[in-house]
């Protein structure tokens, strides 16, 4: 295990940092050596990527906070326009200099930003320290104006100040690289936590009432059940908290002591499996799950979200949907055979139908014109259907319900084309 060592920072701080970021020591030490000492100019931009919940944000946050480095932390999803993003950075900068609480300044363009940024840094008398701007979820930057990403990459050069931009993202740099004016950042990969890491991190934060060993054993069991389906640290932590009280139950009741792992395992395992089918998939909410544990009820009473698949539709809407499904999955040339009575070639059609169905389901729904939909509708409904406004409005309401979807331009008045977006199971339920 590499101990964190750096001449610029006190050893106590480093030790504290090390205890806070388990399993990420190597990355932290690498980052520290890139950062250098406080005054030293660092790389203009650093790109950190890694899978979801691999500790990117957390590590950056704790690193900057424990070492008390001046920094600005911005989430790019939240600042959905460039203006918001830039202003947010400036506002956070202002917070450093408590003395000057000026009202917020509008900052529309990057040019303004550079100017204001320089002002802010100068007024804060922090030129001698490196300022870190951390942009979380940096993939959102690609959707903003074309100049945002390149200029953040070379902000040091543009503002001529001691600043380092850190980009955090879940995707690789290759998907970012802008066409022009790009300065390659230092890329750093945060690998996924291994099962050992997960075990270590999860058991670190044990509840005060129970011993660490006891909790570690619990985490072990939990990982045994969930590791196959979920390696997301956050999600695992969530599940661990949710199910811990159940695990403790025998101990609380006095049926088993903390060492009695086998008994505890027997108690918890079916429960965890149930949790995997329900809470993990968000079929039932965590608060409902907690209540359920409390009442010790059967989860059978609480139906999950997917239990309510049945949709009640008006009579003609059902037929419209079925017609749309048929139009989407049957080729046009079979229409004549399927929907005109007395075609005579029954055996052959059956064979053909079977053969084509499979392949068509793999291909997905095809668009069809409105006329075809109505023609099929007239042939599958027994009695005569008048083409009233009600029928047409039902088509559009099916579109708003996202059971059908409009293909092509929305403003196309003549010959709109639709697609059926529901699955075979759904249609089966409707057709019943």
């Amino acid at each position, binding site marked *: 295990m590499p101990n964190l060592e750096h001449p610029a920072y006190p050893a106590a701080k480093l030790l504290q940092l090390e205890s806070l970021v388990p399993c990420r020591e190597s990355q932290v030490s690498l980052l520290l050596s890139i950062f250098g000492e406080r005054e030293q100019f660092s790389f203009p931009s650093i790109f950190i990527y890694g899978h979801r919940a691999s500790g990117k944000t957390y590590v950056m946050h704790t690193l900057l906070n424990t070492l008390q480095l001046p920094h600005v932390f911005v989430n790019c999803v939240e600042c959905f326009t460039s203006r918001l993003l830039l202003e947010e950075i400036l506002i956070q900068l202002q917070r450093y200099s408590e003395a000057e609480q000026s009202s917020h300044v509008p900052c529309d363009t990057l040019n303004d930003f550079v100017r204001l940024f320089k002002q802010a840094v100068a007024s804060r008398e922090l030129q001698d320290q490196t300022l870190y701007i951390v942009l979380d979820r940096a993939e959102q930057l690609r959707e903003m104006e074309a100049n945002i990403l390149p200029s953040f990459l070379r902000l040091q050069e543009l503002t001529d100040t001691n600043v380092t931009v850190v980009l955090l993202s879940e995707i690789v740099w290759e998907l970012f690289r802008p066409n022009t004016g790009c300065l390659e950042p230092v890329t750093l990969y945060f690998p996924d936590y291994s099962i050992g890491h997960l075990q270590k991190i999860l058991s670190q934060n044990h509840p005060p009432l129970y011993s660490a060993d006891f909790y570690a054993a619990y985490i072990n069991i939990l990982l045994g059940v969930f590791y196959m389906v979920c390696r997301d640290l956050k999600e695992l932590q969530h599940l661990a908290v949710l199910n811990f009280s159940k695990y403790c139950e025998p101990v609380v009741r006095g049926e088993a002591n903390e060492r009695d792992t086998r008994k505890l395992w027997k108690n918890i395992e079916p429960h965890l499996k149930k949790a995997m089918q329900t809470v993990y998939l968000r079929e039932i909410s965590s608060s409902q799950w907690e209540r359920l544990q409390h009442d010790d009820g059967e989860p059978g009473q609480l139906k999950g979200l997917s239990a309510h698949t049945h949709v*009640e539709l008006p009579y003609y809407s059902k037929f419209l949907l079925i017609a749309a499904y048929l139009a989407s999955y049957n080729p046009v040339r079979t229409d004549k055979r399927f929907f005109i009575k007395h075609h005579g070639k029954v055996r052959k059609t059956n064979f053909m139908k079977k053969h084509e169905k499979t392949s068509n389901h793999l291909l997905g729904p095809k668009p069809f014109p409105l006329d075809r939909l109505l023609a099929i509708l007239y042939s599958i409904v027994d009695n005569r259907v*008048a083409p009233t406004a009600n029928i047409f409005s039902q088509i559009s309401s099916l579109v708003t319900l996202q059971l059908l979807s409009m293909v092509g331009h929305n403003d196309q008045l003549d010959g709109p084309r639709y697609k059926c977006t529901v699955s075979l199971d759904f249609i089966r339920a409707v057709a019943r």
Partner: protein
Amino acid sequence: FGEEKGDSEDSELRFATCQSLWSKIKAETEQIQEDLNKQLFDNLVSFLRQSHSDFQEKTTEWTRGMKPREIPTAALVLGVNVTDHNLTFRSLSEVLQNNITPYIALLEAKDCAGIKNLMQKLMGQLMNCHIDEDSLEDEDYVQVSQKRIRCSMTTLVSWYESVTKKTDSGTPSKRTSPSSSHGQYPPVVVILKDMESFSTKVLQDFIVISSQHIHELPLVLIFGIATSPMMIHNVLPHSVSSLLCIELFQSLSCKDHLSTVIDKLLLTTQFPFKLGEKVLQVLINIFLYHDFSVQNFIKGYQLCIVEHFYSQPLSVLCCQLEDAKMQANALSHGQCENVRRLPSFRRYVESQVSEKQIALLTEDSCLKETVQELLEDLQVYHENYVSVLRCLHVFTSFLPKHPLGKQIRELHCTCLEDRVWETEEYESSLQLARMLNKSDLVTMLQQCVEIFVSSSGKGFDKIVEKLKEFLTQFQQLEAEAIQEQDVSVSSQKELQKKTDLYHLQKTLLELKESRRCKKLTKFEVLRFEVVDYIDSLVREYLVPADHKTLHEVVYFNTASVLREHLNAAPRIALHTALNNPFCYLKNQTLQTDGGGISNKAPDICIAYRLHLECGRLINLVDWLEAFSTVVMAAEGPKADAASSAQDDDVIHARFIRAVSELELLGFIKPSKQKTDHVARLTWGGC
């Protein structure tokens, strides 16, 4: 109403009656709506209450720190009748405003094309609602234009902080204001009306953003879902849906809603106005076949009321009984004539003795008295009708396969249509009723007794007595049956003693025989009696309404008008307009006997008629030729050569105009397959 054929003061009166009736009905429907939603709203309110009960509490529990905060979310499944949702949401937000929080934002997908629009809308609504609450202090908020406010979550958070702080340090007088009832930190409720229509990206971004701030801003989401809650999983990836803590709330199905509405509006004597069988059928069909919308049903009902009061001069009498009697007394001579003209009244007159006939037909005062009596009769008939109908429904709804329909509305329709006891379904259901077992029969009878006791009708004492008598008889029967069982048990004991096979067989047969006989004598006879009694009740009280005198006053039965108004058929209307312009223009010269094309018709009609005869591709030259032939037919031979060249130009221009009009209407479009051809876009008769 003004230009109606009747005299003017009557029409005013009718209008007033109509208005008062409708306002009563409207109040009633709103009441129904409220009652139906009460359960749902109560659940929601309690959910919202506890969703953020621990907000800002400094808990030291270790779980707090570790658990990622989820956004409490209520998934509200409302069914596919989207048109009704607005009302539900409006009352929901009202309820929430009164009970939980002043901070409510209602978002619709059409306003939220991007995350920016969504935030703008959200902040606008939240801050405005705040202004509404105590408008005096926050004048400056109004002046700040929407653009100047930075539409970000941080602004919202700081706004929330300032607002809660203000209420916290408010003066005692302010404590009494409604805001204090919301608790110190009322949650911010965001209602997404139509979850399905939101674009996925907007929704995901919004959820991610708000989950970042959930610690500072107690946000609660309410999703209005029209289809099924599976939707949420389809729209949101796991990484986003794991930020939500979703609980499901299901509203009452719209079919149940409709049956309650019918129950409360139609099957009651509270409102004098009634719907005829065909009209009711039309309304129910529209509901079931097309939109599932209770609002539309009520709108249709309103239309019926208006139409009835508009077209029926005697609808002045369609009000509560006491008023109706007064109205009847005040009838003018013309109105009396109207009464005499009613077919049902004529039938009534013909059934009277001759002196009475003359009196009725000549003296207005005599007529008025009779009308009052008849109105009273009608009222009593309705009272009895409803109770007996419910009673019959109790019986028929229990039967297997439901020959008379599962819902009371179906039964109601059958009864209105014709004599119900003459239908085959009634026969078969009686047959089935004769095979019911005892416990079912007893419970049904008890229900019937309850119905009759609770109903307001006068003549039911006897019926109740009779039914109670049946019940006691059944109880006696039960007691006897127990004894009988004792007997049979003892006989079985005897049976065990005997070992001889022949004897055994014989006694078994005897036992069987005796059992059958006994049942026939006691229980089955009673059962037959009950069924026959019910049958007699039905025959007495469930006479269809159009057999009653003066039913025209309160029944609206012109379904065709309603169908015309509610079932719009644009293509058919267009076709008739173009094919038979007389229908709309009412110009006598245009009246044709079907076959030929008149040259007096507008150009577009001629072009349309001609294009109907063509195939998929229409040759423009041929079409022009035919067009000019039709147009020239009238002018005929008198046109000389000099003017014909000029005429040709004019006709050509007229033709081009007609064709372009048809193109605009979407009947044809230019084709690229062949030069000088247009493609036809419509097929078939309409």
